[in-house]
């Protein structure tokens, strides 16, 4: 099994075997002469079947590994419910129970402006702060009167192309049910803004119409009343005025 070579004398072999006696070995009956990479391993063998079956020893074989020290109690593994272990059930039930609103604006409701769009589009992404860090380390000082003179502005409203920033963020409940309709490339934000503005315009229009209708009705009523009053004898105080037609 083990080829010690012809060079090794019998005495040497004996003395070696004696020093590595199985009795003195802490591992019992295993041959201590064979050097092993792993103290707990034995020989790894490759067994090939077929016409010429052979067994080839190819390295350490971990059959007798040291038993782990009370597995399951000292070692934390995936066998335990880690959510319980770290006391995160509350967070789990918080997020799994109710549906978390997708938009960033629902997390930061007090933030003005449209914030639900991608940050790359208006160069406001947080990634860009990491990738291209801003100049820091300079002391922040209040502006002098000379520096403030640079902020002297022209009177009047802002030019048209800057005004889009002033648009208020669209209300979520208004565009919620219209989301699926927009598949023509326009972002839901834009369309929702357009929709809401159109909606309000239509509503206003309708309101105006109703208002006008009411006015006409009132006019007609008034005229009827006047006619009645003119013809009735109960209103003598009403001066008869010549009507101009």
């Amino acid at each position, binding site marked *: 099994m083990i080829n010690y070579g012809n060079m090794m004398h019998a005495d040497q072999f004996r003395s070696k075997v004696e020093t590595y006696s199985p009795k003195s070995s802490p591992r019992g009956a295993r041959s201590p002469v064979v050097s092993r990479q792993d103290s707990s391993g034995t020989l790894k063998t490759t067994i090939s079947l077929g016409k010429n079956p052979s067994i080839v020893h190819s390295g350490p074989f971990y059959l007798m590994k040291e038993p782990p020290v009370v597995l399951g109690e000292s070692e934390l593994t995936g066998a335990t419910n880690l959510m319980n272990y770290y006391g995160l059930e509350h967070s789990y039930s918080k997020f799994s129970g109710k549906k978390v609103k997708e938009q960033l604006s629902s997390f930061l409701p007090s933030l003005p402006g449209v914030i639900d769009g991608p940050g790359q589009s208006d160069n406001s992404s947080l990634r860009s702060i990491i990738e291209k860090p801003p100049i820091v380390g300079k002391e922040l000082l209040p502006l002098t009167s000379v520096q403030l003179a640079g902020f002297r*502005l022209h009177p009047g409203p802002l030019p048209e192309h800057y005004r889009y920033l002033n648009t208020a963020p669209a209300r979520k409940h208004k565009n919620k049910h219209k989301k699926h309709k927009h598949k023509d490339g326009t972002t839901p934000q834009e369309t929702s803004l357009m929709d809401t503005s159109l909606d309000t315009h239509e509503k206003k229009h309708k309101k105006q119409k109703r208002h006008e209708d009411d006015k006409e009705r009132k006019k007609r009523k008034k005229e009827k009343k006047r006619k009645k009053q003119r013809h009735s004898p109960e209103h003598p105080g009403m001066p008869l005025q010549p009507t101009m037609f």
Partner: protein
Amino acid sequence: MGSPLENLETNLEMFIENVRQVRIIVSDFQPQGQQNVLNQKIQGIVTGLQEIDKLKNQVQDVHVPFEVFDYIDQGKNPQLYTKDCIEKALTKNEEVKGKIDSYRKFKTNMLLELQKTFPTELNMYRALRGDD
């Protein structure tokens, strides 16, 4: 005095509000009297930045995962990241538990079968391992 994070949040909100007011003033600027207000607001922005800068030392120990930035940059609620993380962890936990349970069953079955086929060797093995 709240926690450092609360302080930072309040300061950031005040700063944003200040900028919003500047935007309103600037959007339809009336020079009569508004120049002074605008100047005050601009100085307010500088003061706000100073305050935020002072608070940075108090929040040095706060670590934010990079992935959260991606969520925010995409206009998504960062709480979705927490939700996704928890769900992923739970799935992985269940997966690993399944594997461990399977290996345990396999070990039990293997020992049973080995006991049937090689009773002497297995007894020796058990004795060596120290589990009786």
